[in-house]
C-alpha cells in the first residue's frame, strides 16, 4: 500500500509552497476543515491522518513503530519525501506539534517553518517543570482507557452512527471524523501523555510560530512559554480562543496568525 493511501493523504491548493497539516490526539484531518481551505490559494495544502486515526490504513498500525512519537515523525518525513517537500510549512496541532519538531530535526531541509498549535514537550510535571498533570492523573487517564472502553468506543458509537434527527449531516461526515480504533487510541494516548521531548526543542533550526490558547488544560500558557524559550527561532501568539482546539473554535484567529507568520 502506498504511503498516500496508508495515511489518507489529501492534496489541494495551487501554491508553489506546500503547507502540511497534522492533526493531534483524538481526531483526524477533519480538525483542519475550517483552516486548511483558506490557504489553498497561496499554498499546495496537504492533509493526512496518522496511522490508526481517521481513514488511515489501520492494518499498518505497528505497536512497536508507533510506540514513540518518532514513529509518527518518520511518517511525516516519508510523506514529505514522497511529495518532494522542500522549505514547506508544517502546521501541527496538540501532540503533532512535537511530531513536527521531531520531523524537522530529522529532515531540516523539508520544513522551513513550523506552526505549533498548543504544543507540549511533556504533559507530566517534573520538578520545576509544570506539564499540567501529575503522574497519578495521567495514570488515571491511562487506566481509565484500559478498563473503561466506554469513553472511547461505546460512547463514541452513537455519535459515529449519525443522528436520524439531522439527516443533513451526511453519513460520510459523521462516519469519518474522529473515528478511532479503541485499542490504537489507548496506545496513542499512552505515547502522547508519557512523551518527553524537552531535549529536542533546542535542535530545531526551522522558524517556529507557537499558537497558544488561553485556559488550555492540556497545554498551558506556561508550557507554551517553555517551548518558546527552548526553540531558538521561535515566537508566540496568544490567541483569544480558549480550550485546546482553536483550529475549530477560533479558526479565523488561527488563520490570521499563520498568514502573518508565513
Amino acid at each position, binding site marked *: 500500500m502506498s504511503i498516500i493511501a496508508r495515511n489518507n493523504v489529501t492534496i489541494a491548493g495551487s501554491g508553489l509552497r506546500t503547507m502540511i497539516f497534522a492533526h*493531534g*490526539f*483524538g*481526531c483526524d484531518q*477533519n*480538525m483542519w*476543515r475550517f483552516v486548511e481551505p483558506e490557504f489553498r490559494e497561496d499554498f499546495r495544502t496537504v492533509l493526512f491522518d496518522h496511522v490508526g486515526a481517521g481513514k488511515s490504513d489501520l492494518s499498518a498500525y505497528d505497536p512497536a513503530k508507533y510506540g514513540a512519537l518518532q514513529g509518527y515523525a518518520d511518517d511525516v518525513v516519508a510523506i514529505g519525501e514522497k511529495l518532494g517537500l522542500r522549505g514547506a510549512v508544517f502546521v501541527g496541532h*496538540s501532540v503533532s506539534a512535537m511530531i513536527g519538531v521531531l520531523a524537522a530535526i530529522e529532515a531540516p531541509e523539508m520544513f522551513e517553518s513550523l506552526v505549533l498549535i498548543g504544543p507540549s514537550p511533556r504533559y507530566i510535571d517534573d520538578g520545576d517543570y509544570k506539564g499540567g*498533570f501529575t503522574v497519578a*492523573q495521567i495514570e*488515571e*487517564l491511562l487506566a*481509565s*482507557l484500559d*478498563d*473503561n*472502553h*466506554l*469513553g*472511547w468506543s*461505546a*460512547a*463514541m458509537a*452513537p*455519535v459515529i452512527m449519525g*443522528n436520524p434527527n*439531522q439527516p443533513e*449531516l451526511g453519513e460520510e*461526515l*459523521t462516519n469519518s*471524523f*474522529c473515528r478511532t480504533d479503541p485499542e490504537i487510541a489507548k496506545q496513542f494516548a499512552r505515547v502522547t501523555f508519557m512523551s518527553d521531548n524537552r531535549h529536542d526543542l533546542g535542535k530545531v533550526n526551522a522558524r517556529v510560530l507557537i499558537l497558544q490558547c488561553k*485556559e*488550555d*488544560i*492540556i497545554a498551558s500558557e506556561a508550557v507554551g512559554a517553555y517551548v518558546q524559550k527552548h526553540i531558538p527561532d521561535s515566537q508566540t501568539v496568544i490567541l483569544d480562543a*480558549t*480550550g*485546546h*482546539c482553536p483550529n*475549530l*473554535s477560533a479558526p479565523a484567529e488561527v488563520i490570521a496568525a499563520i498568514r502573518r507568520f508565513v
Partner: protein
Amino acid sequence: MAEDLEDLYENAPCGYASLGPDGRIVKSNLTLSQWTGFSQEALLGKRLRELVNTSGAIFYETHFAPLLRMQGFFNEVALDLVTIDGATLPVLVSAAERRDAYGDLLFTRVTIFQAAERRRYERELVEAKREAERGLAAERTASELREQFVAILGHDLRNPLAAIDAGINLLQRRGFDDRAPDLLAHMRRSGSRMQELINNVLDLTRSRLGGGIPLKKEECSITPVMAQVIEELRIAHPESEFAVNLNATEPVDCDQGRIGQLLSNLLGNALHHGAKNRPIRVVAVTEEGRFTLSVANEGDPIRPEIMERLFLPFYRGEARSSAEGLGLGLYIASEIARAHDGELSVTSDQSGTVFTFTMPTARTAAPDGVG
C-alpha cells in the same frame, strides 16, 4: 393542573446546563445542583470540564469538544462528574449547539443523565467479553494441542502397531515355530516403542496444560540411573560407540527417573543426528553446587533456523524416518530441566553438537518441585 415549565426545567429528572459561546455555564437547573452539591450560583461561569475528573476533561477537550464544534452536537458521552464532596457520579451527557441566523453560536445546551446502573452493566459486559476472549484463547490452545495429538496418534503409533499386527498375522499363519521368539521380541520392542510415545504425549499434556512436568524429587546419587540408561542404549545400538565419563560424586536433589529420561532423550537425539561411527561423549560432573551433564556428538552442525525452534514441541529438524519419534524428545528434556530449576542449552558448530544440562545440586529457594 397545567404543567409548570419553569418547574419542569428546575426539577427535571435530568441535569440541564447552558454554556455561553465561551463555554462557561450561564444557566443550570436545580437538579444538577442537587447532584453535584454546587449551588446554581457556584456553577455559573464554570466550564463543563471543571465538573468532571481529569481523564474526563482530557477526553472532553480532545474528543467531544471537537465533535461538538464539527457536527453541532454530541450524544451519550460517558463522563464522570465530580461532586463537591469529591465523589464520582457516572453520567451520560448529550449536548447541542444553538446558533443564530448568521451561524454564530448562542448557547450550547447540555443534558446530563445519571448512568451508574448502566455504567456498571456496561463494565460487566466489557469484563464478560474479556473473560470470553480469555476462555476462547485457552480453548484454542487446547484445541491445537488436541489436533497435534490426533496427528501423533494417527502417524506415529501406526508404524509400531502395524509391526505388531504383521507379527500376529505371521504367528497365526505359521504357528509357534523356531522363529517365533525373535518375532515376539520384535513385537515387544514395538509395544515398548508405543508405550514410550504415549508417555511422551502425556508428559507434553502435563507440561502444556498442567503447569509443568511433575517431579518426585529426592536427594540421591545420580550416577546409577545414568549408567543404566547408557547401558540400555548400548544394547539397543550395538553399532554405536559411547565415550562415558560419569563423575557426579555429590548427591543431587532431583527426580532420578526424569534425569534418566532427559539423558535418554539427549542420547536418542545424538544417535539419530550424530555422525555414524563416531563416538557419542557423555560427561557428568558435580562441582560448586551444580550438576552438569553434557552429551556431545560429531556431525553436521545444526542450522541456525532449526536451532531457534529446537526445544519447541513437534519440531523435527529434518525429514525423518518413521522410527524417529514425535519430535518431543528435546522439548521434554528442556521441560524436565526447567522443572528442576535448571537449564538445557546447545552449541553446535563444525566440531559437533553439544547439549548441556545444568541444575543446582541442592534444593533451591522455590519449594515446589514442579517448576
